[in-house]
């Protein structure tokens, strides 16, 4: 059974205009996903596609407007008070920026200990040992517990962020662009660490990234988001080798590659600009940039449907990019 089930999740923000006007921004619109235990589901998309908002809403860090988020059968969105606090220990987040996501006034050891104190798990007597264990797990030396964040490099800071996320022994970890602020050589160290920890501890990752190379390396299943909706979802192999949605195809074609076999491929280009999210068109959101768009696309929004077993796409004319 899946560890995480997201059903029809929507997040709306109210945007105030001048003179008392306001509009609703649908940051996440009717998103359903399921994530088996011990696996990695990647959410990819460009900035503003709603991938981070969707994941943070699933972790209850952003209030959801509609839908259900079931962790092991319990709907996180309906929990309150002490039960919510206990549930929070099971879902933790690794943030993007290792510079701004650590409290500069706390020592590294105290930063890692903080979630255990806040969520009151494990018992007080065990917490110091747990901090030492976590430092070893993420490859930091025990004496570094006494240092402040500014005394660490970017990669080491991200290791502290990972240790903090692991502190309460969570089952689900949301990795929100966990390596995009790091230099390439350091990025490899952190990606290897995340995969090693996943294998050792049986962690489940909801992995958010805009870097398709990183996603291809890390994920088991991939959901592609565009303007708040999932446009395609499939296992890693089919998504990268036989994408059905023209947006996925354009994204993949846009990534510069050093692989000779991928260079000179027929490039599907996404031209033009995205539509205004406050005033979305009635049809497919991608129609204005899509090389395959026809009248139907501009009038009717395509539903996310299973096109082949385990491969969903929201497109009226799905298929390979053989043009």
């Amino acid at each position, binding site marked *: 059974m899946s560890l995480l089930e997201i059903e029809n999740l929507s997040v709306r923000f109210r945007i105030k205009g001048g003179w008392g006007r306001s509009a609703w921004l649908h940051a996440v619109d009717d998103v359903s996903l399921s994530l088996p235990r011990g696996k990695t589901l990647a959410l990819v998309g*460009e900035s503003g596609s709603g991938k981070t908002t969707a994941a943070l809403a699933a972790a209850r860090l952003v209030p959801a407007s509609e839908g259900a988020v079931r962790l092991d059968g319990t709907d996180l969105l309906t929990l309150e008070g002490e039960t919510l606090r206990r549930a929070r220990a099971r879902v933790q987040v690794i943030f993007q920026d290792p510079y701004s996501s650590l409290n500069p006034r706390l020592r590294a050891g105290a930063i890692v200990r903080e979630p255990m104190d806040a969520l009151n798990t494990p018992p007080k007597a065990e917490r110091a040992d747990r901090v030492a264990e976590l430092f070893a797990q993420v490859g930091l030396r025990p004496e570094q517990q006494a240092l402040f964040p500014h005394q660490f490099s970017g990669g080491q800071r991200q290791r502290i962020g990972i240790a903090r996320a692991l502190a309460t022994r969570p089952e689900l970890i949301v990795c929100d662009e966990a390596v995009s602020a790091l230099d*390439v*050589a350091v990025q*490899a160290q952190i990606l*290897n660490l995340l995969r090693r920890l996943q294998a050792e501890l049986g962690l489940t990752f909801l992995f958010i990234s805009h870097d*398709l190379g990183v996603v*291809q390396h890390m994920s088991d299943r991939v959901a592609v988001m565009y303007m708040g909706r999932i446009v395609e979802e499939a296992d890693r*192999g089919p998504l990268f080798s036989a994408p059905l949605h023209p947006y996925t195809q354009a994204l993949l074609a*846009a990534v510069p590659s050093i*692989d000779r076999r991928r260079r000179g491929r027929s490039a599907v280009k996404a031209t033009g600009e995205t539509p205004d999210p406050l005033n979305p068109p009635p049809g497919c959101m991608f129609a204005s940039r899509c090389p395959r768009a026809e009248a139907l696309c501009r009038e009717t929004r395509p539903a996310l449907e299973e096109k082949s077993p385990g491969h969903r796409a929201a497109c009226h004319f799905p298929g390979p990019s053989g043009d």
Partner: protein
Amino acid sequence: MSLLSVENLRIELALRAGPAPVIDDLSFTLEAGRTLSFVGESGCGKSMTALAIMGLLPDVGRVAAGSITFDGADLTTLPDARLRQIRGNEISMIFQEPMTSLNPVYTVGEQIAEVLRRHRGMTGRDATARAVELLDAVRIPNARSRVTAYPHEMSGGQRQRVMIAMALACAPRLIIADEPTTALDVTVQAQIFELLRDLAHDTGTALILITHDMGAVAEMADDVVVMYAGRAAEAGPVEAILDDPRHPYTRGLIACVPHLTADPEAARGDLTEIPGIVPPLASLGASACLFASRCAHVHDRCHGARPPAFDCPAGQRAACWLEERA
């Protein structure tokens, strides 16, 4: 004669502990119409090279040795007034952050027109008309009405196009682009790359592209200089370096990034790690290989002397003792 030729350049930053050579004995040439890429981690001296060519080194930095010859004139010895004529007119720069490099209180048209009035002495009306043409050239839709837009009214990709339009305003012969697409989405990055490629092709402008992404190097550049700790680790044609990288740092840079592969079903091993981090400024300039502390092939010689650039069979030059041939 090359358009730009840099010889034995050494740039020192004055630190409390003494001068640190952030660029150490760097030489390269660039012909008109070609694209040269600098690649490496942050803190390796890529941007410092660009600033030196533009004559925009920070106050604590100075050219300690070597020459930067652009079109026959040594930029390191030219008086400021002459340098100002070259800068913007013949060499221009595209910066990394399109949001912070544009002035938020002027329209984009005014900012492009300012370049033309300053450098070309155009009247306000002519400059504005030319600004519209430039916005059109960088493929901003409906340029005539967008010329009066403020930077905050544009998307990140459009702002970077405005930066490119400003760089193009005086038809320079060399454009330096410092991580021009780092803040942008991949589909927008692809559009900006295509634009830069077409411009270089149509106008014969030479381009220096500073990046940390080997994929971008593969798509854009003719030649590449891999920088490490202020020194060229490996330099030569892109094809040679991507197909047969000789310096362990180049090999690490290529292997440590999970690139999209043609065969996504293949098994995934661990990524190659380059252990450790870039050496601190204070240790630059040592007579040793600065990569030695992170290198898997390190031996005694690496600590004893700085390796010179050796010629490699594929056509590039690599500064590694393992490349020494009898």
